[in-house]
C-alpha cells in the first residue's frame, strides 16, 4: 500500500515538469552542400540563386561551398534557380540549373507564451537539372548539418 502511494506520488511529481520553452529546433531553411565528385567541398562562384515568380535572389556574386535557402511556407514546393560560373577548359562559362524541393508544412502551437510556428518536414527533391544530387536529411532542423548535396 505504502509502495503504491509513493510510486503514484513520484509519477505525479514527474508529470509536473512544466511547459515547453520557446526554443525552436526547426528552421524553414534548406541546407545545401556544394561538392566535387570526389566528395570534397567545391566553392562555387554563384552569380545568384533566384526563386521564379518572386523578386528574391540569394547569394549574389558570392563564392561559397554551402548555401542555406528559405523555402516558401505557404506552398508545398519551392524552386531555386542557380546561376553560377564554372571553368571548362580554362574558360569561364555561365551556367544555370534549377532545383525544386517538396515538403510538408506543419503548424504547431508551442504554448500560450511562445505562440504558434510553422515548420517543414519530409523534404524531397521533386525535380532538378543538376546531374548529381543527393538527399541527406529530410528534416529542416537547426541541428541538421546538411539536407542536400549537389555534386559538380
Amino acid at each position, binding site marked *: *500500500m505504502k509502495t*503504491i*502511494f509513493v510510486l*503514484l506520488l513520484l*509519477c*505525479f511529481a*514527474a*508529470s*509536473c515538469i512544466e*511547459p*515547453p520553452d520557446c526554443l525552436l529546433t526547426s528552421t*524553414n531553411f534548406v541546407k545545401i552542400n556544394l561538392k566535387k565528385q570526389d566528395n570534397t567541398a567545391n566553392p562555387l562562384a554563384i552569380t545568384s540563386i533566384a*526563386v521564379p515568380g*518572386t523578386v*528574391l535572389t540569394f547569394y549574389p556574386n558570392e563564392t561559397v561551398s554551402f548555401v542555406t535557402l*528559405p523555402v*516558401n*511556407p*505557404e*506552398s508545398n514546393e519551392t524552386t531555386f534557380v542557380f546561376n553560377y560560373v564554372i571553368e571548362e577548359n580554362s574558360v569561364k562559362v555561365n551556367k544555370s540549373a534549377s532545383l525544386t524541393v517538396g515538403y510538408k508544412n*506543419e*503548424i*504547431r*502551437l508551442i504554448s*500560450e*507564451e*511562445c*505562440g*504558434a*510556428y*510553422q515548420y517543414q518536414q519530409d523534404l524531397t527533391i521533386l525535380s532538378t537539372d543538376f546531374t548529381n544530387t543527393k538527399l541527406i536529411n529530410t528534416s529542416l532542423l537547426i541541428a541538421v548539418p546538411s539536407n542536400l548535396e549537389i555534386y559538380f
Partner: protein
Amino acid sequence: MLAIILSTSALAQQADSVKHKFLPTGLRIGTDLISIIQSNLGEKFNGWEVNTDVDIYRYYITFDYGSWSRHTTIPTGNYENSGNYFRVGTDINFLLKDPDRNMFFLGFRYAQNNFSEQLNYESTDVYNGTVQHELQNNNMTGRWGELTAGLRVKIWKGFWMGYTARLKTAPATKGEDGFEPYEIPGYGLAAKKTSWGFNYQIFWRIPLRKI
C-alpha cells in the same frame, strides 16, 4: 490440476460473494468544485464535471461526464477549444472497516472526448510578408487512460466530500486537419505524454438498499 484450481477458485468466490454481498448499496452523484471555481475566476476557462459512482463491495464503478472550453490569447493571435468528455472506470477502496464507509481508493479510468480547436495567428516570411492563418481542427476525438487515487469522506447524512488525483497518460487524437492538436479537453496539453489533474468534489449519496 487445472480443474482443481478452477473449482477451488470458484468456491472461494462463491464464499466471498455470500460473505460480502456484491450488491450496490448506494449511488453517489457529485461535481468538481475546482472546475466551477476556475470557470468563475477568469474568462480563459469554462468547464464543469459530474461524477458518479456505485459500490459493489469494495469496488466502485465510476462514470464521469464533463465539459471543457478554453479561450486564450497567444503572441499575434488567439487559440480556443471546446469539447465534452467522459471517463469510466473502477476504484478500489482500501478502508474496509470504516463504520461510515469513508474510503481511500486507488483506481483507473478510460477517458474519451469529442472536441474542436481553432487557432488564429499571424506569421511573417520573406516570400509572403505577413500572413493571417485561420486554422481549425473540427470533430476531433481523443482518448487517454488515468490512474486515480483519492479520498471520500462522509460529512453529514448523504453529503460527502472528497478529492481525486489523476495521473493521465497515453493521449491519442484522431481527426486533426489544420494543425497539431494543442490541448485535449479533459486531458490537458496534447504534447505531454503524462499529465495530472486534481478534483475537489462534493457528492450526495442516494441509498439503494440497507447495508
